């Protein structure tokens, strides 16, 4: 009698196992996770106070590209101050082969004139540029930059912009060639630039 019960249990368990094997679909994602492809970077043309500025204008130079905005009260000044101090560590010959572009991620509020004033406060070699919201979004996407408006009552115009705070490095051939982390000290900025200036 007890043997029969055991047998029944065994059969039920076997059926359960079979059923699981056939029908249980693990909920783990089948699709491959999005591949973290290196951002492509690439050329762009935006507006500065003095007219259009294109990345390709600087071919042959090492270009630092930073995405920020002029209402940015802390993060951008920290990044730009580090960049500016890094530039000051370079010799005039080295500096002549470096360009810095500050791309606004707040095209609604940042005018080219505002950007010029803001960027040059840190270093005269920094060019502030902006474009239509669509243009800026497309470039940010290509560089792997994230930015999003965040409502803050008391911020000028009622919002701040969360944004990637790294500085992108474009090699002399126009290729996106790494980035400098936010709040890196000036000597590291200079070292990153020099590394690329000495590349054949």
């Amino acid at each position, binding site marked *: 009698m007890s043997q029969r019960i055991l047998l029944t249990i065994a059969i039920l368990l076997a059926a359960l196992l079979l059923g699981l094997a056939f029908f249980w679909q693990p909920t783990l994602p089948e699709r491959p996770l999005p591949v973290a492809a290196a951002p492509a970077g690439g050329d762009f043309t935006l507006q500065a106070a003095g007219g259009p500025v294109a990345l390709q204008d600087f071919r042959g130079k090492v270009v630092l590209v930073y995405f920020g905005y*002029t*209402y*940015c*009260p*802390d*993060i951008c*000044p*920290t990044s*730009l*101050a*580090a960049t*500016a*101090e*890094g530039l000051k560590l370079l010799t005039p010959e080295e500096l002549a082969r470096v360009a810095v572009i500050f791309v606004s991620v707040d095209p609604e509020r940042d005018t080219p004139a*505002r950007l010029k*004033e*803001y960027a040059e*406060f*840190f270093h005269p070699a920094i060019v502030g540029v902006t474009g239509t919201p669509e243009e800026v979004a497309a470039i940010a996407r290509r560089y792997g930059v*994230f*930015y999003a408006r*965040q409502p*803050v009552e*008391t*911020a*000028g115009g009622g919002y*701040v912009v*969360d*944004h*990637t*705070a*790294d500085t992108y490095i474009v090699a002399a051939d126009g290729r996106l060639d790494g980035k400098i*982390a*936010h*709040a*890196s*000290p*000036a*000597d590291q*900025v200079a070292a990153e630039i020099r590394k690329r200036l000495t590349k054949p």
Partner: protein
Amino acid sequence: MKQLSLLAAGLLFSAGVLAGAADNVTVQEPYVRLAPPSAPATGAFMVLKNAGDKDVKVVKADNPASRVTELHTHINEGGVMKMRPVPAIEIKAKGEAVLKPGSLHVMLIDLKAPMKEGDAVPITLTFDDGSSKTVDAKVVRPVAAPAMEHKH
């Protein structure tokens, strides 16, 4: 009876003010970062040390140079810096709170007039027991993060 308890509460409150958090908190190296000419806001930074046996919170900051003053922090989410207001900045008993770029700071929003390097901005900090303290923060040009954690 009600009046009596009110009086008692009032006395307790004023006692709290007299032996307040402000007496236990010292402020070191306060400074305001000079804002670029077109920037409407800037940050004030300092190190707050609490010599007392109780945790203390800064619940409010004020200054005459901007129309709005807030306590803020930054959250770094995968390289994306997010600035957010915080209701208070806590200073642990016998501990310190470091207000520095990219982290906690007093935010001066909607500046009334452009600042100059070397100006001093009186910043009043109000603590959770109602006591307060005013420090003069020097206006300095933004500098890069020091290579070391703390620079003297």
